[in-house]
């Protein structure tokens, strides 16, 4: 009788990496659609260019590392990285900004550390932070929400590609960019939240015109992934919980010293994208469920701290990178007990 020794794990997940990545890509669609409705075609041009550059750079890196590019491109991790960076960048970003961001994401943050599964930092967020500290002007110029444009005509799809490929730094007519709600809260520390809402139309109902749609879209996508068991609830809900808790504590009814209501924080900026698509990165976050919960809680707290007291209006990228640093530490202290051991 042949006794084959089979070691654990005995139960196999049916999902392969490429399936997981495709589901993640699919789940961004509601958010992307909402962003396109809110801010025009700029998000689409960002994503298309980012995917083109990301695929090319991944293939190039694989060829240089003497591995079959086709095989590694099929895990679609480069596609998801490109998608996330394209969403995070301000709409209508110039091609060279996207190329540089993808270079740092794919080559520096991912391949130099050993490729898929070895990167200690979230590649898309590395690319974003590199761009944010290098080109503060270009990176903080966000397109105005379409409903507030008035007479200004938003560019069509082809024209948007023209803007992106033209690469000019000032392609957009006056009045086409506007400060985001989080910007406004930062810059007007003398105004009460209610004054701000009266004075600036950008504030919409809870999260800011356009922003609440986009965040709602990403929330829907995230819930889909949760339902499909692509990831567990620990990291995303942890992040949303600590962000909501801190902003509620510091809201104090909307005085000029507050940083905006919890709803504003939850539905503005990159909150939902970060919670459902960034902190859930299986590679660069913690491994155990408890670790993931702590990872999410820490990321949410950092987001609020940087938004309120930091130098930048939004903070998801910085928060996630800082938490990536301590993910190994979280893993060390949250190691689950092995069955049968005390």
């Amino acid at each position: 009788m042949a006794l084959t020794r089979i070691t654990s794990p005995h139960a196999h997940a049916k999902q392969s990496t490429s399936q997981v990545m495709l589901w993640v890509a699919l789940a961004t669609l509601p958010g992307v659609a909402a962003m396109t409705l809110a801010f025009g075609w700029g998000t689409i041009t960002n994503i298309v260019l980012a995917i083109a550059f990301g695929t090319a750079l991944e293939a190039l890196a694989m060829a240089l590392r003497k591995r079959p590019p086709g095989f590694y491109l099929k895990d679609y991790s480069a596609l998801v990285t490109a998608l996330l960076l394209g969403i995070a960048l301000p709409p209508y970003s110039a091609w060279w900004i996207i190329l540089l961001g993808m270079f740092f994401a794919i080559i520096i943050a991912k391949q130099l550390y050993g490729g898929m599964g070895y990167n200690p930092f979230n590649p898309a967020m590395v690319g974003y932070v590199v761009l944010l500290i290098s080109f503060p002007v270009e990176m903080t110029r966000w397109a105005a929400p379409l409903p507030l444009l008035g007479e200004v005509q938003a560019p069509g799809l082809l024209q948007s590609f023209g803007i992106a490929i033209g690469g000019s730094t000032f392609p957009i007519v006056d009045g086409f960019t506007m400060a985001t709600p989080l910007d406004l809260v930062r810059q007007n520390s003398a105004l009460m939240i209610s004054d701000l809402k009266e004075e600036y139309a950008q504030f919409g109902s809870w999260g800011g015109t356009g922003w609440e749609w986009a965040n709602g879209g990403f929330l829907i996508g995230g819930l889909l992934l949760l339902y499909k068991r692509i990831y567990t609830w620990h990291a995303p809900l942890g992040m949303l919980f600590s962000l909501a808790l801190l902003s509620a504590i510091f809201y104090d009814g909307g005085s000029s010293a507050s940083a905006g209501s919890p709803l504003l924080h939850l539905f503005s900026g990159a909150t939902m994208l970060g919670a459902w698509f960034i902190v859930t990165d299986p590679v660069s976050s913690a491994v155990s469920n408890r670790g993931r919960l702590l990872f999410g809680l820490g990321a949410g707290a950092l987001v609020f701290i940087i938004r309120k007291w930091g130098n930048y209006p939004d903070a998801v990228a910085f928060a996630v990178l800082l938490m990536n640093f301590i993910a190994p530490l979280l893993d060390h202290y949250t190691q689950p007990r092995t069955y049968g051991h005390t």
Partner: protein
Amino acid sequence: MAEYRELTVNGLWKNNPALVQLLGLCPLLGVTNSVVNAIGLGLATIFVLVASNSCVSLIRNVTPDEIRLPAFVMIIAAAVTCTELLMQAFAFQLYVILGIFLPLITTNCVILGRADGYARKNPLPAAAYDGLIMGIGFAIVLVLLGAARELLGTGGIFANMDLLFGPTASGWHWVVNENYPQFLLAVLPPGAFILTGLLIALKNVIDGRVEKMQAAKQAPIEHGSKRVRVTGTIS
């Protein structure tokens, strides 16, 4: 002569203070955001290294082992103070730009490392030569980093060279692209870390290639050898 050749190879390549020993990283990362800063700090470091190595070597037979480190530090600090005063006199603006990094040369581990590791055991000429060549090895890396960061960060190179070389050098500034958007990352400290890492990687790649080529050249098979070959390729 062989010793001097070994010193040269060690200082410039095999044991380069910046790329292999990873000493003196503080100024290496702190001031290499332009070529002129890098050259200024490089020259200052070379000067201090030669002076401190020479002095340490001269007093090597009268310094008790127990108090050698304080003595070396005093010598280095004196050399650094001289450098500072010289720079204040002849390149004042550069002195202002380099700021705290000039007095910090005192704590540069390359200098104490060479004093303790080489100069206190060797005669004056060898010690002075070691200081010179180690300093040059360090300065070359400084200038390479400075050039890369200035070019990537500002789109031009050799700006403000008149701070060091007099008014004639103000025309040396070469702008590659007028419309280059400032790439701040290269000028800020993270860029220094990333580029230093890439330089070290480049050196390791070159070393690996050279080793491979040498191994391919050798691989001798002795005539009548009975041992199974475990190296080389099977054809």
